[in-house]
């Protein structure tokens, strides 16, 4: 079929932030499917709690200290995260180069505490179904944390190279920050399930 040129869009930008960028939608898609995975894992926990007359089974509830510290840290990290996001959207390379490492640290610190969290669960994964459920919930979120921290570190390194200055990179940083909010958000129901439901 013949073609008829009717419009020219040369003036469009070659990157954009938020819903303009396909990557933002991709990130949202992964949030949705991972969120679904978390929802199913939580439902599994609740189901097991529901069918067992005793919950937790043969165990003291987990100690609160490490888990609560993680929660506080994660909630606090939202502030620098949004400073970073704003810096990326302003395309300020200086601010991004400072705040990326800060956010990497905010990601790594809960991972250190996480090590102690497993110890404070007061049960092994193979003791009974309750133990299995809490270990898997905590394990899932740990995997989530590790992958996002890894991602953040790589991106932080990238921002210090010559590739850092491109607009697309800033958009990536902004999406990464958006994903971090999601990582924080998914933790909150898990925290309630792991630490407070056994105390009901």
């Amino acid at each position: 079929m013949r073609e008829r040129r009717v419009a020219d869009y040369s003036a469009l930008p070659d990157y954009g932030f938020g819903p303009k960028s396909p990557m933002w939608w991709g990130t949202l898609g992964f949030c949705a499917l991972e969120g679904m995975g978390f929802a199913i894992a939580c439902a599994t926990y609740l189901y097991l709690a529901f069918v067992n007359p005793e919950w937790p089974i043969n165990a003291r509830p987990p100690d609160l200290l490490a888990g609560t510290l993680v929660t506080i840290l994660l909630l606090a990290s939202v502030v620098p995260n949004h400073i970073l996001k704003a810096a990326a959207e302003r395309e300020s390379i200086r601010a991004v180069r400072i705040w990326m490492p800060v956010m990497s640290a905010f990601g790594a610190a809960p991972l250190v505490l996480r090590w102690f969290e497993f110890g404070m669960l007061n049960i092994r994964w193979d003791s009974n179904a309750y133990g299995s459920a809490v270990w898997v919930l905590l394990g899932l979120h740990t995997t989530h944390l590790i992958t996002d921290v890894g991602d953040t570190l790589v991106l932080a390194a990238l921002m210090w190279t010559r590739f850092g200055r491109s607009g697309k990179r800033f958009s990536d940083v902004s999406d990464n920050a958006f994903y971090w909010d999601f990582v924080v958000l998914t933790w909150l129901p898990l925290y309630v399930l792991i630490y407070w439901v056994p105390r009901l």
Partner: protein
Amino acid sequence: MTAEAPPLDREIRDRDLDDAALRAALARTWATRSSLSGWIGEVDHKRIALRFVLTALFFLLLGGSAALVMRLQLARPESGLIGPDLYNQLFSMHGTTMMFLFAVPVMETIGLYFVPLMVGARQVAFPRLVNFAYWMFLFGGLMLWIAFLLNTGADTGWFSYVPLSSLQYSPTKRVDFWAQMVTFTEVSSLAVAVSLIVTVLKHRAPGMTLDRIPLFVWAEFVNAFVIMFAMPSVMIASTLLILDRLVETRFFETSAGGDALLWQHLFWFFGHPEVYIIFIPGTGMVSAIIATFATRPVFGYVPLVLALIATGFLSFGLWVHHMFATGLPKLGESFFTASSMLIAVPSGIQIFCWIATLWGGRPRFHTPLLFVLGFVFIFVAGGMTGVMVASVPIDLQVHDTFFVVAHFHYVLIGGAVFPLLGAIYYWFPKVTGRLMSERLGAWNFGLAFAGFNLAFFPMHILGLQGMPRRVYTYPAELGWGGLNLLATTGALMFAASFALLVVNAVTSYRSGRAAGSNPWGAGTLEWATASPPPPYNFALTPLVTSREPLWSERTALPVVTGLRVDRRETFVTSPAEARPELRDMAVEPSIWPFVAALFSGLTLFGSIYTPWAVVAGSPFIAAALVGWFWPKSAKEE
């Protein structure tokens, strides 16, 4: 004609080039190097999709062969062809292969080929992710079948119920291979789903508002959402199963507070939508084919879209309904049947609209349309037996018998395989540039239709006579021999129809009539470009002004300019109105997705034997991912 392509050391826009120079420049920019690294690092959605589809058809061959061996065994009473252990593996391998390795991937990845073309895009969103998905799919499927050849084939049915699949009752590695295969294929389907969703939302050609999206694209779009919300459940399920088996968690172990029904909940939360994941794209194919061969726009576009969306929601809603309305769920095959009950409403709307379209048009009975008519017939019959099974007295009578086997093959083969065959005949000329033989096509259809009914209709009667499913043989006194022989004959005929399809495809690929860009006179955008389409799909992006651009723009297709041609650029548009927003960089080929899939595969495989495989494999996967995301040249920016 070889046009002189301009040098690449500066920014070049398409608007500055005439047609020949434009195509030459695009060909150079979008070509995949013909080397090993180019091949495994492919990012052209068409080539990846073609690999997906051919691989899935290969698995259809394997799954079909397993079915034929079962049918040969059942052809006469007390047959000694194969024993119970192999029979267990065969029906499990057959069911698993058909559902996870054939039906879901083939229906989803036909979309991977045609969705971008139909929305006027140059590429899918995240092509590297899609390439990763292909390799994961391939590795998972091969793993399952190689294990089978080593006598470690899945043998607990395609839904592997606990406690049968627990370590206690299945001490060998058979179940572990099954469970890990699930993870491979679901990762793959999920990745493709995200890519398709973003392609539809962000890569539609300017002007393609929501109400101008082709119905096939709508179907794949809705389907991708169903995948996105259904598959995580089965991934969690299979992971918990393997954890129970490998590191002694207690999820399904009743004596330690676990629960066997938990497995069924998790599995069917996925397993129920699964049937629609197979069926929804099929309806999209039907809509596309009917419009083209009725030579008119589909009657009832809006109701059809709403029916698709309703089906998507119902596929989950039904599970919930099942849970709350009946207390403890009576699971298993009844899911298949209940699905046919509730789906009646949107299905009825769809069938009505299709028939009205044919009625009001001038139908041309080419092979694709024949398969569609076969679909309507079989699907309606399957729906009727569905309503039958859903009534309690009959259900008690036929539960776990061949009646159920007959029923779900009517639904699955009618709802998916017939539309798929129609789609193959319909789009073959686009993919290869050549038409398939109509004469062989008619034979192909006739043999498939007759063979299918001959194979599966008698199973209804056998079921009513009480023949249970999943048994490897039966005594002669029961008098089931005759109908079983008939069913086996039909199965062989059905198989022969596929042989005919292969013959037709191969000979037509070699020497079929040249198709040209739009052999059927269809209206959607995939027919605007050459057959086979060039790597960049469209030299200039179409501007869409109606639902069937090729029917409304009879003389010349309106197109837009503005993209650079010295690097891979494509338009990004807004989700609802498809207003142009960005000129986006499309990625270059990369071997890293392959490497990441390889390491992920080895890790999953190793984890069948030791949990430390995860620890050992993770750094490699991480390194591959860094390679994947690290930009290679300034041009990629």
